[in-house]
């Protein structure tokens, strides 16, 4: 997927003035945030926090042992009859899928929701090769009809109102006009059902892979993931290498925090543990199961100061809690992963120079860390990325000079007091109510702060003199 993250500020401004988007994103994020709070603490606040810290420790432990776990996972899956492939980047991942499609005479593909396939641009690769692809997650299906991309990790159409969803279904899928949510869902369901039955190949992502058993774990609510992974002859799961965990014990904890954080459910409607293709004597399931383990930049993060970003289980809680995401929505972030975690991993996966506004797209309020089911210190990484931007020269001369002058003024008492008095004098004498240049944004939304007639330094001195 093309990276448009350098346009964050401009895209955010458009989003802020889009009333439909504001209404939809505000409703969606509020609802997600509130449901998470309830579900996470259903057995008390302490229990929720304990679960979160346990999950955080598990994910960090698994990351620490990731190289060994990947090898173990490959061995376990192979023993289960799963064909394991490795992809260093998007091109190789897509080539693997196309090779599999060709080998098995695949003409049509049904997909369940997967962010990594957005990352590698799989749908386009398949379409270019003449293979039909259908997204079967309801939200993703609507996006595909409208030729849009997801704006949220878990709720891909969080930016759309009910009316705009209805219009897409009427115009792009010939749905008879209706305002009933139930009728819309039923229409989509019937349309999708036909494709499940006729597709040659199902493509899914993977929430976790358990190394000791070789199980591919998926959570879903609509039931489409079960059909995608069991009805077609061939199932291909495309999974980021960081999704591998050690044990079923690990999974037991992670599968509790993921749905609570993502959708505010203590458990999703469907929880899948897929252990391989159809065995002799079994009446259903795919004949072939492939798992493609995708790197696509992850190993470059591994071992750096940003390793903990790989602990992310893609629940979307940090998006729902983020004051910035709440007003910009996801598309402004310009790539696959929006919100706080997107502001960290987009620069890391696509290059800092391609996403330089994103580390700054945060008030550093810390809500993302507070709600993260694996306690990723996103604010710390945003700060470090800001430092990387300066260190690598992705900076602005005006700010560079301003900061040098500021540091000069603030590292000696006389200069500080003089600077404060000068600034106060200038603003009072000129009756400034709008700031110039890079500071003008302040006065667009807030009154000009007034400098006090006397600084605290002066007040204190007067008090001492009394």
């Amino acid at each position, binding site marked *: 997927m093309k990276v448009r993250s350098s346009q964050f500020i401009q895209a955010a401004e458009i989003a802020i003035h889009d009333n439909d988007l504001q209404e939809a994103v505000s409703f969606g994020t509020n609802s997600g945030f509130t449901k998470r709070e309830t579900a996470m603490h259903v057995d008390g606040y302490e229990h929720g926090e304990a679960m979160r810290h346990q999950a955080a420790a598990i994910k960090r432990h698994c990351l620490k042992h990731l190289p060994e776990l990947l090898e173990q996972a490959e061995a376990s899956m192979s023993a289960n009859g799963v064909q394991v492939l490795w992809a260093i980047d998007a091109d190789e991942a897509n080539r693997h899928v196309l090779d599999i499609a060709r080998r098995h005479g695949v003409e049509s593909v049904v997909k369940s929701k997967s962010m990594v396939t957005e990352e590698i641009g799989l749908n386009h690769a398949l379409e270019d090769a003449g293979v039909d692809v259908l997204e079967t997650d309801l939200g993703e299906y609507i996006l595909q009809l409208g030729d849009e991309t997801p704006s949220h990790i878990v709720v891909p159409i969080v930016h759309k109102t009910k009316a705009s969803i209805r219009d897409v279904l009427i115009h792009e899928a010939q749905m008879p006009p209706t305002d009933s949510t139930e009728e819309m869902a039923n229409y989509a369901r019937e349309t999708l059902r036909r494709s499940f039955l006729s597709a040659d190949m199902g493509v899914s992502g993977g929430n976790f892979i358990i190394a000791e058993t070789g199980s591919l774990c998926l959570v879903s609510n609509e039931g489409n993931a079960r059909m995608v992974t069991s009805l077609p002859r061939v199932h291909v799961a495309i999974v980021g290498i960081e999704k591998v965990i050690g044990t079923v014990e690990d999974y037991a904890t992670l599968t509790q925090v993921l749905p609570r954080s993502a959708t505010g459910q203590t458990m999703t409607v469907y929880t899948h543990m897929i252990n391989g293709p159809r065995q002799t004597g079994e009446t259903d399931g795919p004949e072939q199961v492939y798992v493609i383990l995708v790197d696509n930049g992850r190993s470059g993060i591994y071992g750096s100061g940003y390793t903990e970003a790989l602990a992310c289980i893609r629940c979307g809680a940090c998006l729902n809690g983020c004051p910035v995401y709440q007003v910009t929505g996801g598309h402004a972030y310009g790539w696959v992963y929006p919100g706080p975690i997107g502001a960290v991993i987009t620069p890391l996966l696509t290059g800092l120079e391609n996403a330089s506004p994103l580390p700054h797209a945060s008030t*550093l*309020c810390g809500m993302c860390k507070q709600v993260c089911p694996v306690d990723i210190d996103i604010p710390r990484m945003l700060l470090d990325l800001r430092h990387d931007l300066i260190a690598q020269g992705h900076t602005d001369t005006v700010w560079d000079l301003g900061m040098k002058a500021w540091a000069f003024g603030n590292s000696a008492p006389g200069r500080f007091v003089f600077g404060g008095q000068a600034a106060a004098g200038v603003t009072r004498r000129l009756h400034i109510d709008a700031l110039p240049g890079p500071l003008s*944004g302040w006065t667009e939304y*807030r009154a000009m702060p007034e400098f006090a007639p006397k*600084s*605290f330094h002066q007040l204190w001195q007067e008090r001492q003199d009394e």
Partner: protein
Amino acid sequence: MIERPSPKEKRVSLFVTCMVDMLSPQTGMSVVDVLEYLGVEVEFPAGQTCCGQPAFNSGYRRETRQVARHFLKVFHDAEVIVAPSGSCTAMIRHEYPRLFADDPDTQAEAERLASITWEFTEFIVDGLGITDLNAALPEPRTVAVHHACHGLRLLGLGQGTEQLLTHMGNANIVDWDSGELCCGFGGLFSVKMADVSGAILQKKLRDIGDSGADWIVTGDISCLTHMNGGLVKQGQQPSVRHVADVLAEGIRGQQ
């Protein structure tokens, strides 16, 4: 977590913060008044400037270290440092030690100062163990608390401000759902991404209107300046007040 020695019976060095110094010096005097009312000896190291957070949050680590070194020098003899800001306190407590990771001597000093630095309400409630100032506001007021993000999430300040206000006569605390939501300030974020910051602020101002409180009480002049600036821009009264000013107003009636 850094072990923090008890600050009881010790002289307090006030770190007034650059924003209070220039924009709201009376808040600094309120801090002094409240601490002295509680029998604490307060001194003000005169050479002090800024904690360095504007540069740190913008990624300018070298400039941050320059200013932080100055802070370490100015407060070298301090026994206890108190600052009327959760954000500046968090900068000193969490970031200073990290900032000097490759300079062990400076890091040791940074860690020592980090361990003796307290946010104003935290110092009173957790440090001195006082929640009742035995004071009352001159007139009845409904108040709601805005928990500034860094105090809330980086320092883990709990309900200290609420506890102090609960015991304050004539102060009626109202429940406010939005008390823990960011106001959108974010330091230079408010000018670098002014539209986004402004949009977050508009939501916060609506929440302030819905709170039904006479005053929004908070612990950081930065958020306060941001929210009051937004209210004034909309032609409304600036109703956000620093907790030190509210407490000082209460004790002045007792003196």
